[in-house]
């Protein structure tokens, strides 16, 4: 702290930041909170609290099938994204590629170009190919939009590896696979897990792309929720399901943060 200045300035800054973070998180917090409201329509403050919407959520076969679709699509898309993205990240991180900047820029395009525009085009192509609303079509689209996350995370993960480490391990007598398993893998494992989690979540929660290419057979939860919100307004059952989803994400982030902190400390 600078001479001749009171602590007030810093505290005000802290308070402002805390307020902003709370505001950013408030929709998620209220989503969780409002799922415990007993009435059909949410009002604040609620007149009574209950778990009945959670019970209804578990009982609803309709939502269960869309959640199953979302999960399945998310898992396949994440697997594809992690495999393809990790393969691409390896040469990019080692810098062994010509036109590396251009390739990186190209691979990150789905993050920078508007997905709604792409979806309007994709919709027409899928319709022409007859794969609108098919499992394959959804998985392909989701793998495409999650790929840049994986590429980014894995480039960073690989860049953290000293290329001499592998050689050092081998010089100490480790066979190639053992060297990979004992040296490279543990270092990139957090990156792999992070990109898998990111890809899964982006796919699982995607509404922008899916709502365009959705059909009647494979309807993901966000697509169902969106069409329902547009036509009928908020169904409290979806509040309960949404609350569980964001609650799980919040928990995963906090646990992940805790683990990575501990992991860093043991390495330090």
């Amino acid at each position, binding site marked *: 702290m*600078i001479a001749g200045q009171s602590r007030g300035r810093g505290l005000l*800054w*802290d308070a402002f*930041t805390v307020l902003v*973070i709370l*505001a*950013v*998180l*408030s*929709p*998620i*917090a*209220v*989503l969780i909170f*409002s799922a415990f409201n007993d009435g059909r329509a*949410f*009002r*604040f*403050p609620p007149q009574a609290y209950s778990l009945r919407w959670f019970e209804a959520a578990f009982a609803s076969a309709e939502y269960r099938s869309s959640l199953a679709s979302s999960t399945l699509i998310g898992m396949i898309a994440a697997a594809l994204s992690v495999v393809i*993205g990790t*393969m*691409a990240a*390896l040469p990019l991180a080692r810098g062994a590629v010509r036109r590396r900047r251009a*390739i990186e820029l*190209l*691979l990150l*395009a789905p993050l*920078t*170009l*508007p997905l*709604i*525009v*792409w979806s*309007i*085009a994709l*919709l*027409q*192509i899928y*319709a022409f190919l007859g794969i609108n609303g098919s499992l394959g079509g959804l998985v392909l*689209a989701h793998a*495409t939009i999650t790929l840049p996350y994986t590429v980014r995370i894995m480039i960073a993960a690989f860049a953290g590896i000293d290329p001499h480490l592998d050689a050092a391990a081998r010089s100490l007598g480790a066979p190639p696979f053992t060297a990979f398993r004992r040296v490279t893998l543990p270092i990139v494992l957090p990156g792999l897990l992070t990109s898998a989690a990111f890809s899964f*979540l*982006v796919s*699982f*929660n995607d*509404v922008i792309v899916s709502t*365009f290419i959705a059909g009647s057979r494979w309807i993901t939860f*966000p697509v169902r*929720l*969106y069409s329902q*919100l547009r036509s009928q307004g*908020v169904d409290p059952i*979806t509040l309960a399901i*949404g609350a569980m989803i*964001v609650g799980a*994400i919040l928990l995963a*982030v*906090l646990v992940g*943060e805790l683990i990575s*902190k501990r992991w860093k400390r043991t390495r330090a």
Partner: protein
Amino acid sequence: MKRPDPAVLLLTPALLLTGVVFLAPFGLLVATGFWSQPKGSLIVERSFTLDNYVRIAADLYYWRGLGRTLGLSAATTILCLLIGFPVAQWLVRRARRTRALVTALILVPLVCGALLPTLGLVNILGTLGVLNGTLKALGLIDRSIPFLGNDSGILIGLVQSFLPLMILPLATVLDRLPVSLEEAAMSLGATRPKVWRRVILPLAAPGMLAGALLVFCAALTSFVTPQILGQGKVATFATIAYQQAALVLDWPFASALAVVMLALIGAAGLLVALGRRALLAAERAP
């Protein structure tokens, strides 16, 4: 035959996915924007016409949608800059050990997708929602303020959704400025506002431009937030395009609307590039 380079083999699937599945459709879009579909029919006529663009240009409805979209996006960008800058600087200068946690928390709404946070926002901004309920309980208002179904709710929703897109690149840029630059400026006689004007602002400008472009484009093309928080009463360019593509099923017209959006984003990008060049030139000037 030459043995293929392993790097090329490793990169091929990713390049195919991005190049063919992602980028190629943009080309198709430009083509279909020049096709047409007679009213009431679902058969696309594949012959060149400017009808779609003429229809957009001739109807005040689209111009109004465009104006509203640009206004909302600009307002979102400015608010995100004003709110995001102090937070990004806080992350870099004051967060210390909480930095990773706070960054992760800021990212949470982003990975929750466009829909779930919006669902929560409906319960905050509704006439019986948390915000009105709290204001009433505090005795500040006695009749609910309508946030949903108009621009104010949409603006709140857009700022809330896209603030992380501003904070994170800004924090990255600010991270690269050593504190000693600020300290040097102060020791040379610069007060806090002067340090900010003469040292931090010019050096953070590239990050601000990058963040502004990200937020502006995200706001411009967002259709879930305006649809839900506008309760279908507020037409932005993206919600119109969504309707045409997914509900009306006039794909050539939807394509033309999408091309207009793309052009707007291109213009914004160009503007940012020009701004960047102007900054560099200004710095070079003696």
